[in-house]
């Protein structure tokens, strides 16, 4: 019997888990994937929004601004990559300038500080490569960028270190009411708890509908992205949004915290909740629209494309477009954390606290005395100084064995990723924790080595190693226990 079951180990679920781990509660996270950060949290823009977009008075507006304010300290506590690089909303038409003022006003109502409307000349000072049609921009100094994997994994590890259990490969098949709360049926067995928190991302509707008559529907809204080589990562320093134009809603061009350039996303409503394929049309759209924001992004520098799914709610009884974070009317003790689309990543730290407050009201737990608020990330040889490198190698020579050439990731870092709390079990898990395979060759060189290390450390055959899901095998099993 648990006090709280959290369904979903995305950024919301992990942020909630971390906040609950401050309390004397028995908490468990059930995740259908083999790792944390396997859904919407893994494929998004990685933006810490300033908070001028959301309608004043909404949960989105409140939690965005709060999340933004918390992110810096959280990044220091939990040691993940975050940078306050500022953002610009680009305006391409003199006639639209007043929309920038509206946006600024809305932002100020939401509590965003430092907003400023800049003319073209002032924009050029900050961003010399900005597109020729740009006439003005709204500057938000509090805008930032974050590594979405880094954030989610850090939250999860810290929660786990403070006693939260995580179960992977545990897809929820059904939820039953029991006397003391709920029983959750999963692939990995049944779990009971007094409270359930539904943070199931694009599947939050299905989980919600298991307990409520009040039907919810989430229609995944797909966004396609292009990621560029680090050699063009400095084409922009801030995150560049676009004011919607006649061409439709704009896309962004941003540096990532690791120094790549990212463009996207498109927006297309689809039915398939695993429909993560990119399309020629989508990618062409991204290229075409990005050219408005920044001149001459070299097409040859693309290193990969990907898409993510926003958990967009299309059927719900209340006002549309806001986060749904509430106890379900006809299911007491069941809390929805649904419709967490943009600015969900930014809001995550605030969502964690908001939901923890709800739990506190319901269960009235004591605070934990020995809560450990900090967590140390995996050292990065690529970023370390020569002295730090020498020190790491002297402690463990594996830090001198470079596995990923593009990102300079060593065996030491990969071993650390595998053996730490909630360690990596898949190549994607290694990639998201260490960046091995994230570079310009996209794992062509290091993949066999990473597979070999994973197999060796887990004491299994290499054919058992997966990219992410259960069917994502790399190698055929050996015939009769031997090589070819």
């Amino acid at each position: 019997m648990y006090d709280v079951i959290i369904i979903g180990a995305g950024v919301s679920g992990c942020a909630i888990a971390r906040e609950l781990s401050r309390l004397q509660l028995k908490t468990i996270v059930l995740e259908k994937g083999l790792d944390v950060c396997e859904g919407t949290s893994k494929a998004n823009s990685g933006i810490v929004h300033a908070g001028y977009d959301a309608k004043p008075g909404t949960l989105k507006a409140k939690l965005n601004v709060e999340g933004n304010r918390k992110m810096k300290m959280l990044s220091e506590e939990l040691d993940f990559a975050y940078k306050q690089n500022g953002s610009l909303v680009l305006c391409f038409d003199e006639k639209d300038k007043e929309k920038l003022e509206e946006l600024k006003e809305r932002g100020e109502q939401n509590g965003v500080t430092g907003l400023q409307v800049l003319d073209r000349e002032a924009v050029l000072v900050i961003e010399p490569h900005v597109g020729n049609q740009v006439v003005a921009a709204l500057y938000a100094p509090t805008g930032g960028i974050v590594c979405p994997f880094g954030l989610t994994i850090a939250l999860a590890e810290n929660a786990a270190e403070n006693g939260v259990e995580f179960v992977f490969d545990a897809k929820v098949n059904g939820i039953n009411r029991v006397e003391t709360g709920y029983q959750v049926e999963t692939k990995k067995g049944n779990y009971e708890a007094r409270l359930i928190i539904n943070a199931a991302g694009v599947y939050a509707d299905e989980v919600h509908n298991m307990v409520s008559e009040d039907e919810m529907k989430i229609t995944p809204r797909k966004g396609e992205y292009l990621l560029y080589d680090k050699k063009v990562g400095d084409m922009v320093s801030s995150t560049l949004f676009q004011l919607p134009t006649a061409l439709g809603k704009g896309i962004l061009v941003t540096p990532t915290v690791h120094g790549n350039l990212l463009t996207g996303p498109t927006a297309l409503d689809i039915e398939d909740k695993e429909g993560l394929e990119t399309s020629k049309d989508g990618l062409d759209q991204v290229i075409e629209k990005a050219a408005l924001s920044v001149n001459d992004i070299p097409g040859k520098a693309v290193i990969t494309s990907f898409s993510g799914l926003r958990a967009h709610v299309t059927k719900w009884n209340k006002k549309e477009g806001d986060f749904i974070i509430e106890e379900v009317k006809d299911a007491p003790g069941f809390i929805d954390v649904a419709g967490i689309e943009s600015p969900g990543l930014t809001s995550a730290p605030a969502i964690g606290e908001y939901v923890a407050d709800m739990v506190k009201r319901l269960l009235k737990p004591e605070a934990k005395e020995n809560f450990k608020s900090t967590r140390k990330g995996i050292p990065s040889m690529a970023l370390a100084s020569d002295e730090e490198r020498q020190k790491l190698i002297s402690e463990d020579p594996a830090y001198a064995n470079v596995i990923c050439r593009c990102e300079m990731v060593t065996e030491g870092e990969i071993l650390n990723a595998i053996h730490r709390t909630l360690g990596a079990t898949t190549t994607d898990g290694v990639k998201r924790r260490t960046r091995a395979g994230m570079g310009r060759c996209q794992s062509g060189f290091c993949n066999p080595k990473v597979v070999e290390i994973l197999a060796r450390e887990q004491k299994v055959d290499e054919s058992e190693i997966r990219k992410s899901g259960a069917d994502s095998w790399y190698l055929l099993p050996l015939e009769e226990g031997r090589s070819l």
Partner: protein
Amino acid sequence: MKTVDLVIIGGGPAGMAAALSAYEKGITDLLILERDKELGGILNQCIHNGFGLHTFREELTGPEYACRYIDMVKEKRIPSLLNTMVVDVQGGMPCLITAMNKESGMFQIKAKAVVLAMGCRERARGAMNIPGFRPAGIYSAGTAQRYVNIEGRMPGKEIVVLGSGDIGLIMARRMTLQGAKVKMVAEIMPYSGGLRRNIVQCLDDFGIPLKLSHTVTEIHGKERVEGVTVARVDESLKPIPGTERFVSCDTLLLSCGLIPENELSQGAGAQMDEVTQGPVVNGRLETTVKGIFACGNVLHVHDLVDNVSKEAAQAGAYAADYILNGEEDWGEAVRPKIPAKSKCSLPEDRDISSQVICIGCPVGCMITVKKKEDGSLDITGNTCKKGEAYARSEFTAPVRTVTSMICVQGGSGVVVPVKTASEIPKEKIQACMDEIKSALVKAPVRVGDVLIENVAGTNIPVVATGNMD
């Protein structure tokens, strides 16, 4: 800090040839830095034959070619540091190299000159930007080659190859020999980028279709590749709507070109050449950075390893000159001669009943054979005697050399590369492979060791082409 006259970065064919030639010019205080656990570079996984016709006047497999150079390097006692990654190079007087390995951690070496010989890398999927899912099962041909030929592991059963460069063609054969089904090789250009002889002996021999003017437009499969959409392209290389078809497969191999490995060259501040995609050099193969020379595939992607060795020997000699005689005026940039790209478009209009492509050397002569009334053969189109003999044999009793690997017990690796000591009848290839696949030998194995005495009843032995301790 360690100080040497010459540091060579990379212990593949380029690095070894550069080291040997510098040594012969009198530079005996030199050091090869190699990131892998052995010298030889990518040749170690190129277990097929076709190497060395220029350098050694005989046809060798990749590991055999590498072994010849490794033996020479050992004979001269040229030192090398293995499992050592160079992370930074700075030019000047002296040059400064930062490297690391498990034994010494991070360390720096001062050298009077540096030869860059890091080779090249394959273009990845991202560079092609193929839409679709991102499942497991998409490999560059070279990664698959490493899995099969070094690790002894199969990355899939049903394969589509995109790109008809030589590595793609050779991997199509390699996977087939190991029992996989290669559905097709798709090539976006109207001609193949591979050598003619590879189209014959890697595709035609095994009935693998080469789809020219075709490309993969989408990848299917959420977790593992389940298939690809292949479409015909028009003259501007755009897919033609309506020609798409789904080809089921569990593996997509990409063989879409090579680019010089530029990380260190750029890190050193070398000016780059957009045409060769490698560093700019002068007539002495010196980059724009003082004391840093470049050769082999890091300079530009070569067609033959023999040409890499030749160029690298020059670079080694120039570097030696520089060390011994001091700096000269840099002069002007001289772009290395890039071989004309192979544009092989023969398969569709060829009359196989009377025309054969010679596989004797990379030229790949198209030879016409006609049976005369008296039963003798009229052979035209060959440019050397070997061609005539090949055409005659191909018409009467075709033969092939088979290259593969055999499992090793108790060795430092799991498989050792092998070949049939001479050509065997073409129809015996399958039987030969069956015996090779079920064979198991004990380490150590040396190049030339007979591992199967009489393969498939041909009276021809299978011999090792690599060493295994």
